[in-house]
Structures are given as structure tokens and as C-alpha cells.
């Protein structure tokens, strides 16, 4: 990580009331403009880590320090499901976070965000009439409408077909580069991690811990059959085996 850190996590632990230790002494630094992928099997605490970063949950111990704390709306969050408001059209869904904060040109900015994800023609469409991929685009536009400094994405493409997933991965790379926002992307797919990341944080479950950090330098989007991506994928496989991540 060469960029100055925007966020530092020190010995962060999160234990749920059920006694499950979701995260155990996690240390992590995230640099400005970095694209960090949190990669790991189900139950490794990667989603919990993302919610802690967003401030939607609090750690039982340890500290989360922002070096320039984002104001409300400066953190964009994309969930695993699009979870749109079904009674409102695409534009109203995207504009809602802006309206909540009383932003004056909410509708214009919502249209701009929809345009960014290629949905100019669907501003008045209701979620039920959109495909799964388009709903996810609306959900991404909602996270982007406020021009966030930090974009958090929680397995956003896990439920989509391969074709749609590839297109949206390219869209996310393009948009985060355009906006220059810091991105933390949670996934359980080695392929997705190797394709998207500046740096991959490999996690293991029970308790949730960081097993390894793998830098992934080089320009993106990567050629899916090229000589950056494939060796990176091989390296990830090796790290998964070496760190007993999949057991």
C-alpha cells in the first residue's frame, strides 16, 4: 500500500451475542483510492468487517480510525441483494439518499448516477420490471449518487449470471477509477478477487482472521487469460492452501 491510509483497523474483534467470534484481532490499513478485496469462505467475517467499516456495527474491542472521517453519505454501500424500494422507480430509489440529506439537485444527480451505470433509459422503471443485473446497477447507482469517497460492496454480484457479472465487474472498475473512490469489495470468488483488486486480503473462518495479504499490482481491467491475472489466480490458490483457508 503506497497511498496514504484513509482507514486503519487495530486489533478489531467482534463477538456476537450467540458467542460466535466473527472477527478476532483484525489489523488492516486501507489506502486512499485503493481497491481492496476481502476474500474468504462463508463465515470468515468479511461482511461483518465491511459493516464495521461502514459504522453499521461496532467492534467489541479494538479501534477503527478514519484519517478524514466521511460525513453521512460519503460512504456508499452496495449490498448482496439490490434491496430497492419496490414502490419507487429507479430514479427515486437512487435519489433517496440525497433527499434524506436535503441535497438540492437530488433528481439531476440521480439521473447522472443512473447514466454512469448505463441506465439512462430506465429512470422511470420500477424494480419489479428490471432484470437482476439492472436492479444491481440501480443499487450501485444509489451508492454512487452522493459521489462517495468510500465505496463498500458486499458480494454484490454473487447472485448474478456469469455474463452480467463480468460486465458489472468492468463497470465497477471503470466507475471507481473515474470517481477516484476508495473501494472495499467483499467476495468469495478467487476469480473476482484476482480480476478486481489492487490488494487482496485473504480471510479464514472460525474465528474470522486475516490469513494473508496479497498485493496485486498492475493495470486493470486485466485480461482474463493474460499474464497478470492467471499467475495471480495461481498465487491465490497457493495462499488458500498454505493458510488452510478452506478448511
Amino acid at each position, binding site marked *: 500500500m503506497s497511498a496514504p491510509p484513509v482507514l486503519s483497523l487495530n486489533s478489531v474483534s467482534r463477538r456476537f451475542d450467540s458467542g460466535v467470534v466473527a472477527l478476532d484481532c483484525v489489523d488492516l490499513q486501507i489506502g486512499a483510492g485503493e481497491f481492496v478485496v476481502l476474500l474468504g469462505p462463508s463465515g470468515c467475517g468479511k461482511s461483518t468487517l465491511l459493516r464495521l467499516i461502514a459504522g453499521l456495527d461496532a467492534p467489541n474491542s479494538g479501534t477503527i480510525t478514519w484519517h478524514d472521517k466521511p460525513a453521512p453519505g460519503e460512504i456508499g454501500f452496495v449490498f448482496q441483494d439490490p434491496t430497492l*424500494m*419496490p*414502490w419507487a422507480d429507479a430514479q427515486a430509489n437512487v435519489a433517496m439518499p440525497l*433527499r434524506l440529506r436535503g441535497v438540492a439537485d437530488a433528481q439531476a444527480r440521480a439521473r447522472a448516477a443512473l447514466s454512469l451505470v448505463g441506465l439512462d433509459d430506465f429512470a422511470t422503471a420500477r*424494480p419489479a420490471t428490471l432484470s437482476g443485473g439492472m436492479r444491481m446497477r440501480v443499487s450501485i447507482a444509489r451508492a454512487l449518487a452522493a459521489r462517495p469517497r468510500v465505496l463498500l460492496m458486499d458480494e454484490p454480484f454473487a447472485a448474478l449470471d456469469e455474463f452480467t457479472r463480468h460486465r458489472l465487474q468492468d463497470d465497477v472498475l471503470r466507475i471507481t477509477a473515474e470517481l477516484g473512490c476508495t473501494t472495499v469489495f467483499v467476495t468469495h470468488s478467487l476469480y473476482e478477487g484476482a480480476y478486481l483488486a489492487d490488494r487482496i486480503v485473504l480471510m479464514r473462518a472460525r474465528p474470522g482472521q486475516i490469513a494473508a495479504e496479497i498485493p496485486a499490482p498492475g493495470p486493470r481491467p486485466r485480461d482474463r487469460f493474460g499474464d497478470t491475472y492467471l499467475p495471480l489466480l495461481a498465487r491465490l490458490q497457493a495462499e488458500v492452501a498454505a493458510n488452510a483457508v478452506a478448511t
Partner: protein
Amino acid sequence: MRLAPLLSLGGSLAAWQAVVMLMHVPVYVLPGPVAIFAAYLADAAVLNRALLATLSVAAMALLCATVLGVALACLITASRLARAVLEPWTVVLQVTPIVAIAPLIIIWIGNPFTAMVVCATIVAFFPIYANTAEGLAATPQALRDVFALNGASAAQEIFYLRLPAAVPYFLTGLKISGGLALVGAVVAEFVTGAGGIASGLAFRILEAGYRLQIARMFAALVLLAMAGLVINAGFAGIARAAARRWGA
């Protein structure tokens, strides 16, 4: 398929009339549809006025039940203390048979119309309240998170998110309560009607029963049943339209 309910209704009426005619069933035991319709025509003005009286009690009760039910549902969603205090009472109200407390309510509240509205409101209140409360609680966590991330106030969350999300639930409650308001109005009228206060259809049913005008009694019953069908179909249509809009 669409005609099936009409055909079944028409067939049943024809069979009913045939049985009554062929078996010479006396009209004071079981009048046929023709006799019932004749009884209605003979007394249409009085019966229609009675129907209107019953419907106005039911409509007013439904309005009160809606306002109270939605307000209380919001209150128990917003405050755990309010939930703890109110929930036992709403259950007590739900399980108390209205016939048991209607005479008391009518004694306590002098005005018969108000008393009947109170009775019908008690009957109609619970489905609206319970369904709306469930809808308010069922808002997806991720949407609440979006609101939290953008610093939404509690009022913004209720009005922009939870209430719109609860609309299909509310309409399900409204459909059930619509029928119940009518039942509540009729029960209240029976109690007041037995006390000699002349109003709605229930009183006309009682009165016809006392005079052994069985065909007239049936005519009043049919009016009541038809009003119930119309109310139910109306609210079911609204609920279906909303469900489509809400993408359910």
C-alpha cells in the same frame, strides 16, 4: 373461469326455488328466492335506508379502526416501551367477544350511533393494527442500513421507508377489517335493536323475525351479504393492484 361464481350462484338459486315449489315448503319456514325478491321490492325504501344506516356505522368504524390501528402500529414500532405497555391490551381487546361487552358500551355511551361505531371499531381494529405492525417491522435490513448511512432521522425512516413498505400488509389488514366492521356494526345493532332503537339492517332482521316475516328477514340478510361481498371485492382489488405495484 370468470363466470364460475355467477353460474354457481344462479344454479343454486334455481335449485332453491325448485325445491321450495316442488316440496311446497311454507314461506314462513323457507321462502324461495322469488318470494325474497318480492319482499324486498315491497319494502325497498325501508330496507335500503336500513342498509345505508348499517353501512355508515361500518364505514365510520373502519375509518376509526384505520386511524387507530396505523397510529398504534407506528407507536409500538417506534418505542419498545409503548409496545410493552400496549401489546397486552390489544390482545385483550382482540379476544373479548363483542357481544359480551356491547351492552355495556351502549349503556356507557348514550348516543346509539357513537356506541355502535365504538363496538364495530373494536371488532375491526385488530387486523389493521397487527398487519401494519408486521409490515413496519418487516422492512429489509439493507434499506434501513441505507437510511442509517445517510443520517436519516427516525421520522424520515418511518415516513419514507417503513410506512410505504407496510402498505401491502396494511391493505391485507384492511380487507379483513372491512368485513369485520360490517359484522361489528350488525352485532352492535342487534344489541341496540333488541333495546328498541330502530336503525340498520340488523334491527330489520330482528323485527321481521318477531313478525314471522321470514321472506323480509331473508331480504335483509341478502342485502347484508351483498354489501359484504362488495366491500371484500373492493378491498381485494385495491390490495391486488398495490401488490402489483409493490412488486410482490
